């Protein structure tokens, strides 16, 4: 399975195959994580908040390729993508393991994945550097086998996303 997760609508409907799921977060209803630890300690693997996030995190887990499209704010994902990623913690366990010499949460059945991140709206080299460091750390916590970050302007987002999806279909 493949996943396109975007914080803005993308005109991709004609280019997606049956194996690819697309979510436009701007049209989803996703509440903030409330930090209740329910998905770890009460109903493991299941979030107590029953909104659109519960349709998305299982797809994140199952996908072996992901394309995340997000505005960058202060060197991190802006609110729509960050809200969704925070709500995706049911894919992890509470338990800690050592990975690459650091402690990280144990993953549940999360497919190892190749990730592409289309990041737009950055304003400086410093911001891009922080974002690179963030994604490198995310890679350990989101089971990325590999990842590529493409910094684009807002005007380039649609074209870059379409190009990435076409490359998936061709591979």
């Amino acid at each position, binding site marked *: 399975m493949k996943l396109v997760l975007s914080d803005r609508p993308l005109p991709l409907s004609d280019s997606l195959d049956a194996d690819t799921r697309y979510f436009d977060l701007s049209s989803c209803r996703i509440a*903030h994580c409330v930090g209740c630890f329910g998905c770890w300690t009460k109903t493991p693997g299941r979030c107590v908040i029953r909104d659109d996030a519960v349709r998305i995190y299982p797809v994140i*887990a199952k996908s072996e390729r992901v394309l995340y499209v997000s505005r960058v704010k*202060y060197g991190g994902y802006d609110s729509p993508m960050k809200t969704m990623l*925070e709500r995706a913690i049911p894919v992890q366990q509470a338990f*800690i393991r050592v990975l690459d010499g650091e402690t990280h949460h144990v993953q549940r059945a*999360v497919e190892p994945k190749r990730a592409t991140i289309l990041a737009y709206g950055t304003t400086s080299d410093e911001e891009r550097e*922080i974002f690179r460091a963030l994604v490198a750390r995310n890679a350990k916590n989101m089971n990325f086998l590999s990842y590529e970050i493409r910094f684009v302007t807002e005007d380039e987002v649609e074209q870059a996303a379409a190009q990435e999806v076409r490359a998936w279909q061709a591979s």
Partner: protein
Amino acid sequence: MAGILILNGSPRAPRSNSKRYAALFMNRCKAQCEYQNITRTNHAELCEKMNKVSDVLLVFPLYADGLPVTLLEFLKTLETCPLERKPVISVLINCGFFEHHQNDIAVRMVELFCRQNGYRFGSVLKIASGEAILDTPFCGLVKRKLGQLAAAIVQGKARVLHVSMPLTRGMFVRASTRYWVSYGKKNGVSREQMAAMEIEGA
């Protein structure tokens, strides 16, 4: 134009470890402190309060390797809120991992916010194993660092402080496992159930 406004950016602020850290900080701080939770609806009120203090201490947990969205959204509001005099912004961050450096990226995000918006960045305390450390014999280590953070803010110094459990990584992993097993047990959930690989719908 004196005093410290402590803003809790935890998603579960009223029941958070960040609240406990803030309370311990206030007990050790010689300046006047005011504590507020950040909510989705009180941004304007908090911006108004920021106009009246010399320092702001942002207290929050590391969340998905970065700032919790509760805090991110407040910073975005603050960006649009012209303050007459901008307070110095300091950070008290905690993560559940063994390594305090896992907090670094979130701290850099706040520093970037400060640079982009003309705030001076003050001091920072990075707490590791912050989910559990207050309920361990190592609590005193945290209290001492909180005292140092308070002194640094009052004196206008820019200090970078950190605290971790003085354990090996393997001991930490075993201790954290016991902590979470105990947490699940209170909910009637076993270790095996918590370690389920299944994800709903996947």
